[in-house]
């Protein structure tokens, strides 16, 4: 059985099947990315100054060069695809092959650059939001954002979920736990066996509870005589170190660590301060009059022993505020402007006197400080740990939100990672399809070159669409 119009076009519609199919698919892709773009606008416009986390300006937080090069790479690959198609139309397999290799090289380069960007965001840049909403930007020293805890006993709850602390134990050695309670008291389990042991015990507990309920319903249950099922077990071990991910912790004090999965760990809290190289301070969420007293100053004072930085920063701020006041006649100053400046810390630190509001391309004129201000391009993603960084110590109690510049850092990062991630998946998908034509297309080419040309055209349509999406993604994510 042959499906008609697989290669040749139908006369009344003028199209072959795959062409219609791919355009329909692209229509749904338009709606898919449309939904995401809509979410972008929604979240950005919906950001309430002073209440929600400020929406950073792409230029301030992105590696512009990476985005720029990626745009060029994608455009080039698009050009290559059409040339590959033309080569097929001219029935030149070798030319087609060369262009296609070019396309695949471009897509690989694109993904590599993307990976570099992601990595830089995930591991090199962090924000600490303090309780008074001032936000310190910089790089958290490795491991210091974990809760470090010396544990010697563990209480697992079989009605919760499997304990997750296991992969946060510091040492490699296979710790041996002694079971303290219940029927199995005295036996031991190794750390590596803990999970399967938990599941076994979980099943046992469920069965016992079920039995108990059945007996209770039939009235056969005698309190006191019949033993309640054990829903918890206490394990003890030689003291071992846990570096707990704070997101998994529901609560803690000096002696206990309560995991969200209901595991309770006893022992001694070792250290819970976060150490960070600060690069910038964001005061957009702090009202103007409170900016002199934010907690960040105390932390910086403790680290540097002086108030020089504070004075410089506030001087820059005053300059900006004066500028804004003079440029926005009476009273119509945008709230976002008044909320406070986003200040590149390193610049201030490097150049005493607060002269340099980094990256000011407009001569002496200080720029208005509002979320769209980008007085700090250079700060952005460059220069890891350069000279003169101050390292501050922040007790966890004083923070309200600690994050890297990964998806959870705020709605901007969330939409950035989601959109570019989905786009990246499309790039990979498209590249796989095109690679298939390159590797296995020869057979189709020999049999019916027009068929292969059609398929490359269809694959190319998808590829151009992916390029087209990036054409919009680039300015809204990197420039605005």
């Amino acid at each position, binding site marked *: 059985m042959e*499906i008609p119009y697989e290669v040749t076009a139908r006369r009344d519609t003028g199209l072959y099947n795959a062409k219609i199919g791919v355009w329909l698919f692209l229509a749904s892709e338009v709606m898919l990315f449309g939904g995401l773009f809509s979410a972008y606008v929604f979240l950005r416009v919906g950001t309430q100054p002073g209440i929600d986390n400020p929406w950073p300006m792409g230029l301030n937080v992105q590696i512009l060069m990476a985005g720029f090069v990626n745009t060029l790479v994608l455009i080039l690959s698009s050009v290559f695809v059409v040339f590959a198609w033309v080569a097929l139309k001219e029935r030149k397999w070798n030319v087609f092959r060369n262009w296609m290799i070019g396309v695949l090289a471009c897509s690989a380069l694109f993904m590599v650059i993307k990976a570099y960007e992601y990595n830089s965001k995930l591991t090199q840049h962090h924000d600490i939001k303090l309780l008074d909403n001032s936000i310190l930007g910089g790089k958290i020293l490795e491991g210091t954002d974990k809760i470090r805890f010396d544990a010697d006993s563990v209480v697992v709850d079989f009605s919760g979920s499997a304990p997750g602390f296991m992969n946060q134990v510091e040492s490699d050695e296979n710790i041996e736990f002694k079971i303290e309670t219940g029927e199995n008291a005295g036996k031991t389990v190794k750390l590596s066996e803990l999970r399967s042991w938990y599941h076994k015990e979980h099943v046992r507990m469920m069965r016992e509870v079920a039995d108990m309920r059945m007996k209770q319903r039939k009235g056969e249950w005698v309190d006191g005589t019949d033993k309640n099922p054990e829903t918890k077990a206490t394990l003890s071990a030689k003291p071992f170190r846990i570096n707990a991910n704070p997101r998994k912790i529901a609560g803690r004090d000096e002696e206990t660590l309560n995991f969200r999965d209901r595991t309770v760990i006893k022992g001694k809290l070792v250290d819970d301060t976060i150490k960070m190289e600060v690069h910038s301070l964001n005061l957009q969420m702090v009202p103007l009059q409170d900016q002199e007293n934010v907690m960040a100053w105390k932390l910086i004072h403790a680290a540097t022993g002086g108030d020089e930085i504070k004075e410089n920063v506030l001087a820059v701020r005053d300059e900006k505020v004066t500028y804004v006041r003079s440029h926005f006649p009476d009273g119509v100053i945008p709230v976002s402007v008044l909320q406070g400046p986003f200040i590149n810390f390193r610049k201030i630190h490097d150049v005493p006197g607060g002269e340099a509001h980094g990256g000011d391309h407009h001569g002496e004129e200080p720029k208005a400080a509002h979320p769209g201000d980008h007085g700090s391009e250079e700060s952005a993603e460059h220069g890891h740990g350069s000279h003169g960084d101050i390292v501050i110590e922040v007790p966890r109690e004083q923070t309200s939100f600690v994050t890297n510049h990964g998806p959870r850092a705020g709605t901007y990062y969330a939409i950035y990672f989601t959109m570019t991630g989905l786009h990246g998946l499309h790039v990979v998908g498209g590249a796989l399809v095109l690679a298939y034509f390159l590797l296995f297309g020869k057979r189709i080419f020999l049999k019916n070159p027009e068929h292969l040309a059609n398929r490359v055209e269809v694959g190319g349509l998808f590829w151009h669409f992916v390029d087209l999406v990036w054409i919009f993604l680039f300015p809204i994510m990197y420039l605005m």
Partner: protein
Amino acid sequence: MSAASSTHQGADASGHAHDEHDHHDPPFWKKYIFSTDHKVIGLQYGFTALVFMAFGFFLMMVMRWSIAYPDRAVPFLADLPWFQSWLDADGKVTGELYNMFGAMHGTIMIFLGIVPLAFGAFGNYVTPLQIGAPDMAFPRLNMASFWSYFIGGVLMFTSFFLPSGSAKVGWTNYSPLATTTDLQFSDIFWTGQTQWLLAMVFLISSSLLGAVNFITTIINLRAKGMTWMRMPFFVWAMLVTGFLLLLAFPPLEVAAIMQLMDRMAGTSFFVPTGLHVGGMPFDAAGGGSPLLYQHLFWFLGHPEVYVLILPAFAIVAEILPCNTRRPLWGYKTMVYAAMVLGFLSFIVWAHHMYLTGMGTSVSTFFQTTTVLISVPSVILITSLLISLWGGSIRFNSAMLFATAFIPMFGIGGLTGLPLAFNNIVLHLHDTYYVIGHFHYVVAPGTIFALFAGIYHWFPKQTGRMMSERLGQLHFWPSLIFMNGIFMPMFFQGMAGFHRRAFDGGTAYEKVANQLFVSGDSFFGQMFNFVFHRAGGQDVNMIDLNLIMSSSAWLLALAQIPFVINLFISVTRGKKVTSDNPWNATTLEWATPTPPPHGNFLTEPVAYRGPYEYSVPGAEEDFTPQFVPGEGDTVPVPGEDAPAKTETHA
């Protein structure tokens, strides 16, 4: 010209396929499991969907128990191992279990039951046959969409057995509740809530692929002579449904992906600033908007309800003319109405969100479009109604269900109208009235149409008829008990019963004790007699729960004849005597029975419109599309579509 004599297939139709097929049969798994034949895929969809619907129905019966008898242990189930961990110590349904079942009932019924059965099964089986195509345009894609659907279904189902249980925040899965539920688990990926999202991504992908396939098939694979305006209404409805799926589902996919990110990566797309959970500040950056989720969801949600109802119209529009022996009344009007309906359904979504604090001008806009959309709906239903006029109706099982569809959908649609007004929704929103409204549309509406379709096309697939007696035994109780379940919902809803209350509203004392009818009335006496209550006792709103729940269980019993019928008739049913047992006119009846791979033995040609019944002067009371007659134009291949009618893509 006589149709029966001119069709090339003789009376030995059922043996036909096997003769044609002896060229090396593919192995079983290729033929029935990983098949690319649209008919096999249609059947796969159909069976899977029926199983899921039965399962969804079962969930609902447990819920109805909890509502009717909140203080009694669930019968039969309390001793099953899985239930023991979710029922409370007395074997009663817990709120958690109820929420799980409620959410999954909705999800399963809509996304795993009705859409796959209506679009996946009937659409797949019938559309290519009706347009005279050998298969779908992309057979392998078709297989991929079935398996994507299947994986989605399996993920949904297995999520019940996770430690967290399945998703439990309603089929709409609103954030931030959906974001924050079950986050205490160490492995958030393996929680019901996350699995729901993952499954949805699979289901949506399946629908998208399916939609691409359907639209391409309809556009490009129509047989010779099958011009746009010669397509049966069924095909039109599938085309519109395809577009609805194609364009409405992606925003939900976006929403699902964003919610997945919220759960797995800690983003805050839908998490507002300052969210507290259980008295503790929620550990996320904030700045997101729960409203965004609702918009994206309902952008899909409303077109989705038309995805549920259009195939039902489609099926009924095929069955009515065939059994009244009259043309479909207002075929063209119906086609245009369906297109307008499809278009409008995209701009009414916010009528589900009147109470989210939207402004008056915006809600006025949506109020207007919502009222507008009832116009094409009414046109469709009226056309069907008028189609009955003056016919000598053949009331077989299919026709019974199809006829019942009309008033049932009527009730559902008309009760939707008041909901279009935001001042009325102030009172009715999230009450049982809304539940009654949409269940009338989908349960006695769409599901009846689907039953009708099964009875109607069964002989084509198997070469045997389903038992009429069992069909009647299926229909009448179903009709009664459907109404028994859903009619009281309107009264309860108007009295103020809130939906999603797991104890059936005992918590709402004021509403519960509102009088429904006095105990002295006829209804009151009947009620007290049936439910063994002391005579003279008044019937309150809450007592209606007994009627509804009992009806639900009896409805389940009423499906037994159907199941028996379905399985017995495959081997024991009366053999059909021709390939066109109903004397119908559309192209699917021109194939051998059952249609072989590739469908048609000779290239089919459509010589005329799809509903030429009782043509004056004709020898028989039906003139099939595929039978050439005098004066019929035989269109040139590929140029069959006159430019004028080509504009409806």
